[in-house]
């Protein structure tokens, strides 16, 4: 199962420039100003710092995921960028606008999917989207948007008749009607069952194919890994790691671990043996995975030893995430890869 993470489908685009630490330099690659630029963002509620000095730079066309446990400051951050909340400190531009002072101008250029939101229950899908399209200067055709989110056969159904997953797709459709350059998705699949999540992911990928910049928050590792070009991990209001999902927290350069069940009475090559754990498996860290695995397998074939359950592991994104956010938020880690069912 662990290996699946490495073989995951996240190699959709070549990873953007590798960037560690609090700042990235991706925006310098183009002459365009970044879609989102955040410096030293701060926000406190009743003296408690929810966001404690965040720096972010997001390029046009990038899918960026802000990953963190509940209560880490994700929603506060994204709602400041959307203009819903005022910041206490820091500099901020979104598509060249300051969401604090130029919110009215900004509204026409962004699409927002909120964590929990609703629309009038007694209008149809097409009516709802037509109504929202009227508010924007350059809307996308309503039927095109309906097709994009896969609601064509529900075009004339009332919102109250839609399932939870379909209502979420309608949320995304509304966010798209204004043909925004930048799309904010705040925990777009929380509360979904696995099939609804995969449907939503497909929609988000289709959006990215339109060249939209996407700012996503999530507490699901697999969601960030599947969708994002770049991930920033937030814990207690600070960015603790940042980079493409494949290299986050140096996991591409981390030591690999070899694991197998050692039959009794055999002696593995030097440096590749260890006392078996309670489950009878040996697990050793290897510095040079290719050479060491070759030595182990060569020995097994030569000696006729059966290496039951043999595998080579690197830390998964989940391992990295848990170590980064450990001791910071207690029980909030949600490592259930299939998500909560609704």
């Amino acid at each position, binding site marked *: 199962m662990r290996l699946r993470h490495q073989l995951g489908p996240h190699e959709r685009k070549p990873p953007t420039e590798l960037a560690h630490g609090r700042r990235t330099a991706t925006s310098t690659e183009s002459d365009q100003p970044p879609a989102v630029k955040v410096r030293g963002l701060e926000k406190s509620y009743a003296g408690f710092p929810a966001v404690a000095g965040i720096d972010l730079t997001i390029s046009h066309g990038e899918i960026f995921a802000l990953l963190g446990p509940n209560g880490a400051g994700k929603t506060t951050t994204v709602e400041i960028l959307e203009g819903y909340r005022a910041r206490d400190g820091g500099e901020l531009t979104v598509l060249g606008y300051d969401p604090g002072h130029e919110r009215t101008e900004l509204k026409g250029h962004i699409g927002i999917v909120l964590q929990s939101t609703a629309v009038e229950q007694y209008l149809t899908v097409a009516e709802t989207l037509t109504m929202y399209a*009227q508010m924007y200067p350059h809307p996308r055709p309503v039927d095109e948007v309906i097709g994009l989110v896969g609601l064509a056969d529900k075009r004339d159904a009332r919102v109250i008749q839609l399932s939870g997953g379909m209502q979420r797709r309608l949320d995304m459709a509304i966010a798209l009607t204004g043909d925004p350059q930048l799309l904010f998705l705040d925990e777009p699949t929380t509360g979904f069952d696995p099939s609804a999540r995969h449907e939503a992911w497909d929609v988000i990928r289709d959006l990215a194919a339109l060249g939209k910049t996407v700012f996503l928050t999530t507490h699901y590792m697999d969601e960030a890994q599947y969708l994002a070009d770049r991930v920033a991990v937030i814990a207690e209001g600070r960015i603790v790691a940042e980079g493409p999902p494949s290299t986050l927290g140096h996991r591409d350069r981390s030591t690999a671990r070899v694991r197998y069940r050692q039959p009794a009475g055999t002696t593995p090559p030097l440096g590749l043996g260890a006392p078996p754990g309670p489950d009878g498996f040996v697990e050793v860290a290897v510095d040079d995975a290719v050479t060491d695995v070759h030595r182990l397998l060569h020995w097994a074939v030569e000696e006729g030893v059966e290496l039951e359950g043999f595998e080579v592991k690197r830390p998964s994104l989940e391992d990295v995430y848990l170590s980064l956010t450990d001791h910071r938020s207690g029980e909030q880690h949600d490592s259930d890869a299939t998500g909560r069912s609704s």
Partner: protein
Amino acid sequence: MTTTALTFSQVRYVNKAFWRNPSRAFFTFAFPLMFLVIFTSLLGNGTVHIGLMSVKASTYYVAAMASFGVITACYSNIAMTMAFQRDTGVLKRIDGSPLPSGSFLGSRVIHALFVAVLLVVITAAFGWAFYGAEIPRGILLVRFLVMLVVGAAAFCALGLAVTAVIPNADAAPAIVNASILPLLFLSGIFIPFGNNTPTWIVWIARIFPVRHFAAGMQAGFIGTPFDWTDVIVVAAWGLAGLVLAIRFFSWEPRSG
């Protein structure tokens, strides 16, 4: 689209949604008529003295229930709908769109006015057919319409303002009813004032807008003297409601 066109487009969508919600549309219209039938059946044979005039109680109730209908359609409906839509995130979603907030709220008020006028027309026709109410005409009709529109708008503004003290959608019916039901009784809507009405009740009725609004409705239906002071008091309450609504209206759900 211009803001005006957007506002009227919003009114059309509000109207569609209103009629498609059967229970909501039904009760908005059925309640005043049901109360009219109940009150006239129970108390309709008596006589009500208004100033120097004596009118049949059934005729009195036509004006009273028209007032009640307008207050329900404007104050109660707006307050409960906005509290519900605020809690479910409808308002926050609108707040993130380029729709001007005045356009959104204005369209809700315009629709409530439309429903209020329709209610009064139905009540008037019903009262004229069965309870001997007069249909206002001429200059009286103009004054009556002024009071109707000023009153409906004022109660809409008060409905928007009261959402500030509604903590969540579940509490909305309780708070709305607690704020308006006693006042309806204390303003002689359900039970006409007589010579023995305690002074404190009369004073409450003078201070709050309900009795002043009902007096304007009575002038139309019964022919009692029309007093512009009534319009001014109702308008003042409406303005106060508007100021409070602008200051305290919230687009965000009240969590916790």
